[in-house]
């Protein structure tokens, strides 16, 4: 069996890639994808932790898996709003580059 550490390291790597993606990429869609990567890194960690603890204690533990369902559902709702916003801004600016969203300064 694959040890739990491997899952946790993978999820930490995914989370870091997501965070760096949000901070360095300038396309709103790519930033949004990076955020999704962060959420999925958390999902992976939840499932891995829940399973590892189940094996260790012999007791069923549903909290982790249930949280993942909530995250997936909420992420879907976020996609609906986020893509609508991106489409709106593309209609008026013909671009979704976040560096060009600078009509306000101070």
């Amino acid at each position, binding site marked *: 069996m694959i040890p739990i550490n491997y899952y946790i390291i993978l999820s930490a790597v995914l989370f870091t890639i997501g*965070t760096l993606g949000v901070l360095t990429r300038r396309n709103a869609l790519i930033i949004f994808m990076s955020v999704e990567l962060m959420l999925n890194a958390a999902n992976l960690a939840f499932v891995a932790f829940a399973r590892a603890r189940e094996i260790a204690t012999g007791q069923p533990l549903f909290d982790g898996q249930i949280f993942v369902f909530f995250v997936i559902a909420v992420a879907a709702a976020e996609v609906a709003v986020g893509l609508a*916003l991106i489409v709106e801004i593309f209609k008026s*600016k013909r671009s979704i580059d976040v560096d060009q969203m600078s009509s*306000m300064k101070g």
Partner: protein
Amino acid sequence: MNLTPQDYQVLTPYILLTVWACILLLVDLFIPKDRKGLTAMLAALGLALTLGFILSQIGIERVGFSGMVVLDGFSTFVNALLLVSGLLGIALAYGYVKRMGIERGEYYTLLLFSITGMMLMAQAADLIVIFIALELLSIPLYILAAFARPKVESEEAGMKYFLLGAFATGFVVYGTALVFGATGSTELSAIVAYASDGTPGLLLTIGAALILVGFGFKVAAVPFHMWTPDVYQGAPTAVTAFMSSGAKIAGFAALLRVFATAFPYIAADMTDVLWALAALTMIVGNFVAISQTDIKRMLAYSSIAHAGYILMAFVPYGNPDVRDVSIAAGLFYLVSYAVTNFGAWGVVIALEKNEGRGLAIADYAGLGKKYPALAAAMTVFMLSLIGLPPTIGLVGKFYLFRAVIAGGFTWLAIIGVLTSLVSAYYYLRVVVTMYMNDGEPETERETWLGLTTGATALVTVLLSFTPQVLFAWASEAVLKLF
């Protein structure tokens, strides 16, 4: 698991408000385009009914849904404050959306959904519920910030708020995952039970720190504040008024509940971080506000600075002797900030005109001569934001500094006093412009707007004479938290 009527009693306010909002969404379809004021009235009625129900529950304490949600004095206090904020938000928006040509029924429905999320934040006792509540309050606010589309500023505000908000959510979720990994539970009471037997472990500390980062974004603490000025400036002003009070109250309520209930055993690690966050937020917020010429941007930085003052109340959270009094001081400060803030934004709304005109501080010249009542109200709000008598802002800062000094953080209190002095410069500049400079400002006369501004000004002054009543209620609310 069996659900009893008691479980549902804990959640009745949400069920009431959610059902009301859903029905309102349908009813709104049958209200003609030029009569959308009716939707506003119905939304306000829903809030008032919920407020009545919440107030009828004072003194009841209960845990529902197997420890997922709690009903206690703390949640009742915060929920009442949030519902009043919602009512003020609707009163400010009533004429504003009509005048700006963005009057759509969805505005009020989204406001109701957002308030439901905020209220759930105050009552959550499980990290899953906190996550759901956080999203329920944020997603409607993203839409509301972009409500004035196709105005580019508003769309940009919505976009920036959305991207940074989703980023913050990522931190909260990952932090929750690590806390779950360390403790095997997402329930706040189980997390605290795990850590009480000695060493909390690195995983738990990192998880708590990531949750703090996520909430730092939500309440606009430095260095997670970059989105705030743009979003507050670009969003429709009535939305900004609601967002800057409501989202802040809910964010701090959840932060308070999570840290005081679940993480008291890592206070030694967290206190320094919170100290630095509070100090940085006060310093950066107040100093950057000095150079602003746009009133919305200035008030945005002012709201960042006030997040720093409220954060001060968290610093001694691990010290059981002063914890209760400092949390009560934090709650009191939230009330005083919310009242003053709504009033100040109300004055901004009164002077704002189409196409974003009337928003420079220079546009306030001559207000004192032409509209003495409005100028007097604005003076009261500015004095309260500085923390000068005779306003509630002074009392709030007094309680806060006293609690922080009692906790042994004298330097933090000194930074607080010094930055308040700095803030006097930019707040008083508005007052000076109103009374000393000549100009011909134009204001909008709207019944609800005038009533809101007048009432908040009155409360700001009157509460400073009898603050004990409110403070006693806040202390009561906190004692029942644990």
